[in-house]
């Protein structure tokens, strides 16, 4: 599905990603953890096509295409979805219309017929039930005046409507209360299948209790320094990051 090889990127003359490699197979769920400022958001935003970052080396292929060659809107239409760590408020652009335009852009790209207003409403009502969102959200501006938790829920609602092949969830669990976390997790789990891959960036084991990852990675200073299964997350929870950082340093010396 996604193959990142020795990726290096900088922003404003500062190296952020320093030779990052990661492979995500079809149907797999990966968790990426790591200290603040280590480059997690940079990685997922870069993958989604944000042009603030300058790629200075390495390659990324997505479904056998050179991802870095594609514009952000093309990446989205190819099935890549980013749930933002900080979803943007866009007052004046209606939530429903954005979703409908977005879904239809993808359908058109795949050569499918576009949904009309009635079909779309039926679809979105279903998905909103899943996310336990009130229909009043439909008439508001994109994320306008949404609470932090509501914004995150709205991101997963979009994911549920768009049904991407690869979903990158950047700290979707941060700022959620315990009930909202369960709802979001249920939403994500309902989208889990053998064709869809999911990457979750998170700081907390708690999320992984609800969405069990196949793999856990530690990203530090622009590189993946350790990978393991879900037991790695439990160990991190217990012992923090220091020991992984130390071990990585020693391995590097050896």
């Amino acid at each position, binding site marked *: 599905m996604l193959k990142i090889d020795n990726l290096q990127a900088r922003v404003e003359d500062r190296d952020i990603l320093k030779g990052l490699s990661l492979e995500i197979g079809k149907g797999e769920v990966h968790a990426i953890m790591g200290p603040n400022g280590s480059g997690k958001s940079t990685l997922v935003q870069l993958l*989604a*096509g*944000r042009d*603030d970052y300058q790629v200075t080396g390495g390659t990324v292929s997505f479904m056998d295409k050179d991802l870095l060659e594609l*514009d*952000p*809107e093309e*990446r*989205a*239409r190819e099935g890549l*979805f*980013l749930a*933002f760590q900080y*979803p*943007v408020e*866009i*007052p*004046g*652009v*209606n939530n429903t*219309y*954005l979703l409908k*335009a*977005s879904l239809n*852009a*993808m359908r058109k*790209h795949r050569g499918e017929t576009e949904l009309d207003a009635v079909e779309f409403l039926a679809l979105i009502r279903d998905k909103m039930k899943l996310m336990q969102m009130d229909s009043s959200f439909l008439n508001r*501006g*994109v994320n306008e005046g949404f609470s932090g938790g509501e914004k995150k829920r709205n991101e997963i609602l*979009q994911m549920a409507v*768009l049904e991407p092949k690869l979903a990158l969830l950047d700290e979707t669990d941060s700022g959620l209360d315990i009930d909202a976390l369960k709802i979001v997790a249920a939403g994500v789990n309902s989208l889990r299948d053998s064709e869809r891959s999911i990457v979750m960036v998170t700081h907390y084991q708690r999320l992984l209790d609800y969405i069990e990852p196949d793999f856990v990675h530690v990203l530090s200073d622009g590189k993946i320094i350790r990978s393991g299964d879900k037991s790695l997350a439990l160990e991190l929870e217990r012992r923090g990051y220091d020991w992984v950082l130390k071990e990585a340093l020693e391995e590097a010396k050896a």
Partner: protein
Amino acid sequence: MSAHPAEALQGLRDTFVGSAPSDPVLRGQREHALERFLERGFPGTREEKWRYTNLRALTRRQFITAPDGSLSGEQLASCRLDDLDCHTLVFLNGRLLTEHSDSSLPAGLRISSLEALDSEDENEEDARPAFRELNTAFARDAQLIEVDADTALAKPLYLLFISAREELPVMVHPRIELVAGSNSRFSLVEHHVSLDLDENLVNTVTDINLAAGARLTHTRIQDASNKSFQICRVYVEQARDSHYINHHICLGSALARMDIDVSLREKGAETELNGLMLGKGRQHMDTHTQVDHLAPHTLSREVYRCILDEKSRGVFNGKVVVHKDAQKIEAHQASNNLLLSEHAEIDTKPELEIYADDVKCSHGATVGQLDRNAMFYLLSRGIDRETARGLLVFAFADEVVAKVAESGIRRAMEKRIVGRLPDGDMLREFV
């Protein structure tokens, strides 16, 4: 000081002879105003208030006064806002068309024709701007609108000013005086449109007087021909606890100049000024506001947005004067501007004069391009670049339009704005 050919002004004198009222007193007043205008002429760019707005194109023109005309039902339908439940007066090139206007009005609302305009009071005269004198000299079918005390009128009064082409460009001088009684509630909607691509001059003067506790919403939509000249001046006098809201949506004209002067004369008076200027081609749009806080505990809030494409030019000047002893006032002003082309230009300037010490004032001006984060968010959802851009520009404009209370006006304006935007076609289904 006059920056324009003498023949143009002589032309005005000839035009006056054929158009002035016959009553000798009224005629005298008009003549006096004309002479005062001719003495000074049109304002030139050496005057501070006209620094960024050059009237050369206007002063080179000869304008005639409009002959009587009529309007078919279809023509009217093509001009009016159709989704507005209102009382209506229709003007064609400044003349009231009684056959298209409502003759019966609700209790508490009175409309009559206004004959005597500005008096020959020397103290006041010196402060009168040139375009006001010109309006006084030539105004026809001036209207006095009175709202009785303690009257709340449910429907707005809709004044539809239609411009039409004649052999030569026409000058039209709409004149409105509105007096709102104490604790009245009222909404006035002014709509300026063109039947065809006229090159007329429309020089409007609106005097508004709000008694204690009166509340007025004044919406002005200027959607006239892109070759016309639109000059407008609104004067607002506010008594204790009165509330004035102005929405100004400026879409049309080759050159538009809006002046709003608000005097907050007594405690508790509040004023809210919102404006949107949407320029393209070589349009020039200028808004000057002046709010005088003359009493303590008064409040003013201004939000102006300007979106300029191609080679259009915008000017915003927001002056706030806090007079001595006007303590505990609040004055807030925001001027946010979006330049869609590297050839578009905006001059925006707050001007604060504060002679009291316990005041809360804020002002902020931004000039920019579209928000990068919002742009990336839309792209990441598969929206193409043109549509994303159109959506964000529309959203920027809509923050002003959304403040208009009447949903019929809001929807009509949203449609118009979408039609005017670059990449607007993509957005039809969004509004």
